[in-house]
Every structure is written in C-alpha cells, then in structure tokens.
C-alpha cells in the first residue's frame, strides 16, 4: 500500500454530483500531474459530506481544510497553493454568517463541531467504492467479533441493552424485533433492509448508502447471524441510481473477500444479500407493502397481525430494518451497549441523522445526539433562516410527521418527546419554513402529497386524503366556512383510527397541527377573504 502526504477528498454525494464533481476530480488529477505531485497527494471521491448547500465540498487532509462551492477551475489553484506551497486558498473557505472570520478546518465550523458521527462515521471520509478503506477504518471487525466470540443470543442481548430503536420512523426496539424473529418457527428467515426512502425532505438513507454501503451490509450480516437468517434483501427506491450502484459494488467486493456468501470468515455462517428495486410508490416504505412489492405485487399493505417477524416476505419470518438502524449495529457490537447509551436520551439512546431542508442556510445532512433541541439544530448547526426572514414553523419527520411552531423550539428531539408534543421524529427530515409562506398553501402541499401517494386499498385513506385536499382548496380560494374547519378535525379523528397503515393515519396530522397553531390565518381566509401572506388566490384580492 502506498503512502501519501496529502489526501484531497471530493464529495460525490447526489446533491454535489449535480455540480460536476467528476470534472473537479479530473482537474485535480491533471494539476497534480502537472506539478509532479501525483506521488505526494491522492484524490479520493467520497460519499456525502453533509454540507449540501455549500457543495461541491472538498476537504484536504491531513489538516482537514474545508473548501466550499468548488468549481473545476478552482482545483488547479488548490493544488498550486495548498498542496504545493502549503498556503490555504482563503476565498474558498467556509464562511458562516454568525462568525467574523472564515473557518479553515471542517472540525472548527459550527456545522460540524456539534455533530457526533456514528452512522456517518465513514461518509465523506472514505471512498465508498473501496472495501479496503472501509476495513482500514475498522470495518467488518464487528462482524468478525459477533461470529467468532459471541453466540446469536448474546448479539441480540447486546442490541437490546443498547436500547437501539428503529430509525425508519416508528422507533420500535430493535433487539425485541430480532428476538421475535429468532424465536419464530418458519424457515428460511430473511433480513430486509428498507431503503425505500420516500418521505419528502428525507435523504439520509440515500446518502448513507452512497457514502458507506459496507456499514449497512455489515449490519445486515450481523442481524442475519443473530436471528438465524441466511438471506437478505435490500429494497431500494428505483430512483436512487447511485445508491444502487454503490451497494451492488459493495456486495460484490464483500463476497470476493468472503465477508458475505458461504462460510463467512470460515465460521460456517452463510449470508447473502440481493438488491431489489422499487418503482415509484411511497407506500412501499410501509413494511408489509414492501413485502408485497418484493414478491411481485402491487405495493398494498397487509392487515397486521400477523407481524413480519412471523409472516414477512414470502410468508417467512422476516426482520425488516431501516438503513440507518442497520448502520448502527456494527458500532454497537464493536464498542458495546454501554458506550451507545452514553449518547442520546434515556428512552432513545444514540444519535439521529437529520436532513435539513427548506428555508435554512445550511441545508444538508447532519448526525447529532438524540435529545438535541430544534433550536440548536436550526440556529447553531443550520445557521438560521436565510434572506432576513423569520422562522415560522418546522415540520419534523417529513410530510407524515408533524409541525412545531416558534414556541416549541426548545423541546428535546427524541421519539417520545416529539410524539407527546403531537409531532413525530419520524425519518429525521426537518423542513424549515419561513414567515413569507401562507399556512393554508403549505398545508395544501402536504395534502397533495397524500392524495398522490395513497395506494387506494382502504377507504378512509383513499377518500379522506381527497376530502382534506378539497377543503383546503376551498379555503385558499376564499370559499371556506367554519364548518369546513370542523369537518377537517372530524376527518382527522377518523383517519387517526381507521386506515390500514400509517400512511393514512399520519396524513392529517401536519394539516391539523397547522390549524392548531395558525388558526387565525385560516380564519383570515374564511372571514376576511384575504391571504395574509398574499400567496393564495382568494376572492376579494
């Protein structure tokens, strides 16, 4: 293996890859050759670094200098100045509005200094296409430890003790799920990785798979060993081309080294992983709809019980875990449950990956301890609201989550606290909306999503989503009445209780939250026929 004095890391996550990182990579390589530095510095394409708004980002190691919004023509200057002469290119450094001087290294920037990276430990740091780099960072050590030094029951016990809860949104205890599957009598058993990420505002699973695919595979193999499953499926959205490509390569490389497939590490344990693709249906993120789709059917949810751990894909016992959940497994096995519990809150230990989007300065991907407040995330890490506007509301957990107004910015974010506040942690999407937006218009965009994505199998969801949309349209056109607001609340109550799956149950929550916190704005549309934000085409304007 060759040693280099310097490494130039170029972000190749999806958000950055829209801005020609391949050209940047190439310019770096050419420039290094021109200056005779190709044996001194190495250019690496990494997964998402997280700071999407400032992309494409480049980090130069060993010092960790962070360059933002790098263009292909800047690459030559970085080589000529930084790599050759050791002089930082000031004009490309990260500038936070809150700080007087630009920060030089990524660890100093407020965006990174507050983060704790467990799931994202390798994202933006290693070349995701290189299994060697994953292994060099301690990868597959946890799988080795589990297979050679632990019994399956001990693995489950460690995960149970860690308090890890499902990161897909529901927050179900992972150890318990694995126990049910291990005890189930059917055979064969399956591990399914749920990578059908479709929640608006959520792009964490995409970037985890793009940035560190082996971390997810290792988690799947450990889950297989713990529960007695020998086959795993990764069900990925068809739209996520780069995730699919990187995971395919990772599976292939892991098999070559005997880390997947037959007789893993010579222990006699077999575990294989196959990728299956979605084809554009949000509802397939619901576990039983996903099974239906994987088996070759319409993605319509099943009635539960029976639960997946007894009757999952192909009617066999199945553990289905989210990408982020699985990426937590190897660190827990390696460093232990006690270490994991030092992060986060009592009820929800560990970290959470959030995706920041909407009206926020630093949109992108972050990982922070559970229990951090919304205010810290938006204003300390996220840099606040751009263009001199003010914060109006945040939608947590995506469109199926809930909304929180200004007065609730200080509640700690974990599953139980947010649920108690009438919102949800969900997938970790944080949509920030500023005060230039009309609440009815925003609510309409939530409602429209569910009209489009309802699978149509059960009546309350199929009809309810359309009725919510109709009522909101009426209000935004200045034709709404107070009776409509009452009807919204009745609809919401029925929809909490009656649909088959969480899609329908969560569809009214955000809309009802906006009605609760911004009722006067709804009333202005109804009583005065005006839209205070001048967005809706209400009569009388």
């Amino acid at each position, binding site marked *: 293996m060759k040693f280099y004095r310097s490494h130039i890391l170029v972000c190749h996550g999806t*958000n950055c890859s829209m801005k020609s990182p391949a050209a940047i990579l190439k310019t770096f390589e050419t420039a290094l050759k021109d200056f005779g530095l190709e044996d001194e510095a190495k250019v690496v394409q990494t997964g998402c670094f997280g700071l*999407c708004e400032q992309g494409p980002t480049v980090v130069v190691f060993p010092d960790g200098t962070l360059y933002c919004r790098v263009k292909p023509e800047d690459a030559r200057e970085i080589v000529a100045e930084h790599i050759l002469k050791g002089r930082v290119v000031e004009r490309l450094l990260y500038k936070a509005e809150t700080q007087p001087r630009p920060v030089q290294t990524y660890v100093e920037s407020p965006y990174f200094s507050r983060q704790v990276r467990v799931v994202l430990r390798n994202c933006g740091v290693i070349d995701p296409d290189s299994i060697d780099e994953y292994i060099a960072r301690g990868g597959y050590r946890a799988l080795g430890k589990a297979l050679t030094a632990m019994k399956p029951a001990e693995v489950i016990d460690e995960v149970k003790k860690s308090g890890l809860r499902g990161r897909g949104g529901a927050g179900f205890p992972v150890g318990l799920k694995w126990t049910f599957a291990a005890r189930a009598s059917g055979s064969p058993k399956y591990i399914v990785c749920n990578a059908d990420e479709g929640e*608006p505002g959520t792009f964490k699973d995409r970037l985890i798979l793009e940035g560190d695919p082996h971390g997810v595979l290792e988690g799947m193999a450990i889950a297989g060993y713990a529960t007695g499953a020998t086959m795993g499926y990764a069900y990925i959205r*068809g739209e996520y081309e780069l995730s699919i490509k990187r995971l395919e390569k990772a599976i292939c490389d892991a098999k070559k080294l005997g880390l997947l497939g037959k007789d893993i590490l010579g222990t006699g344990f077999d575990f294989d992983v196959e990728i299956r693709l979605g*084809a554009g*249906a949000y509802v397939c993120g619901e576990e039983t709809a996903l099974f239906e789709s994987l088996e*070759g059917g319409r993605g319509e949810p099943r009635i539960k019980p029976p639960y997946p751990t007894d009757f999952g894909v192909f009617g066999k016992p199945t553990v289905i875990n989210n990408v982020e959940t699985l990426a937590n497994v190897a660190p827990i096995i390696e460093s232990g449950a006690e270490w994991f519990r030092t992060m986060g809150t009592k009820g929800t230990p560990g970290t959470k990956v959030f995706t920041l*989007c*909407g009206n926020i300065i630093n949109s992108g991907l972050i990982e922070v301890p559970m229990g951090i407040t919304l205010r810290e995330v938006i204003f300390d890490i996220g840099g606040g609201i751009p263009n001199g506007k003010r914060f109006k509301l945040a939608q947590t957990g995506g469109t199926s989550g809930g909304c929180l107004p200004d007065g609730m910015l200080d509640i700690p974010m974990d599953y139980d606290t947010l649920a108690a506040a009438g919102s949800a942690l969900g997938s970790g999407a944080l949509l920030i909306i500023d005060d230039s937006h009309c609440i009815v218009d*925003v609510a309409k965009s939530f409602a429209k999503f569910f009209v489009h994505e309802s699978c149509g199998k059960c009546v309350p969801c199929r009809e309810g989503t359309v009725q919510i949309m109709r009522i909101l349209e009426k209000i935004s056109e200045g034709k709404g009445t107070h009776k409509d607001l009452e009807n919204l609340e009745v609809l919401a109550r029925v929809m909490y209780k009656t649909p088959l799956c969480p899609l329908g149950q969560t569809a009214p929550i955000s809309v009802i939250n906006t009605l609760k916190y911004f009722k006067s704005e709804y009333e202005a549309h109804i009583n005065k026929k005006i839209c205070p934000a001048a967005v809706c085409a209400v009569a009388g304007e």
Partner: protein
Amino acid sequence: MQKVDEILDRHKDKPGPLMPVLQDLQKELAWLSPEVLTRVAQRLDIHPSKVYGVASFYTLFATKPKGRHIVRICENAPCHVLGAPAVMREVERAAGAKMGETTQDGAFTLEFTSCLGVCGVGPVMEIDGEVFGNLTPAQVPAILGRFREMAAPKEGVAR
C-alpha cells in the same frame, strides 16, 4: 419480442420475478405495451390482470407511450417552499403543455415526481434521469431547449 424473452429468461427463476422483469422491460422499451404485458403473463404464468395491475400501480412504469423526454418536477413540501410552483409554471409555459400532458411535437411529457431525495438543493426537476437542482424559473428555457431537439435516450437508459 426476442428482447422480452431474454429479459424473462434472466429473471424467471428468481423468487418474485415480476418486478425485476418489468423494471428491465421499462428500461429497454420505454413503455409496457399490452402485447409485452401479455407475453410476461404467459411466460411467468401469472394472470394478465395481475400483471397489468402491477404495471399500472407504480409511477416508474408506463403503460402508455410518452414523449421523447420525461420531465419530472418535484412539488413536495420541501421543494414547494423553495419556489417549485414558479418553476413548474415556467416549465409548462416553455414546454407548451400542462402537467401530465405530452407536448404536441412529442418532445416532452411533464410529470410530478415523488420526492427525489435531493431536498438540500431544491427546487429540483429530473429529465431522463439527470437531476437539476437549485432551480429558478429563469434557468428553465435553456435546460428544456437543450433537450427539445435531442433524440430520446437510447434503449437501456433509465428514465
């Protein structure tokens, strides 16, 4: 039909072969005609109504022919608050068709997409699999102009 059979041969022995078969056919043929779906039903021994039911359920499968280029605009909440409605109106104007329609010259079919997971750089749209982020209405005519005269992506390119 030879290509259809090749794809069927590739997947027919897998558990749950229907989705991988339809995905590869969609990539190869750009749309799933009744003849193709009938062939799939015969070869996999699945009732034609079920095959059609699956093909028509998912938004990435087309059961009708579409324009040479598929323009997919995200209008979900994160893109909405960053200005997607204005981008969408400009796309409709510049393309010369409404959302859901195909332009008269057959160049574009305009569709809404589910969240593309690139919300960090919204508003976004996707044309033939290429994603455009941080969009403003002013950028739209040039982007559409680039695609308008272009031939459809060749077979085997996902879109």
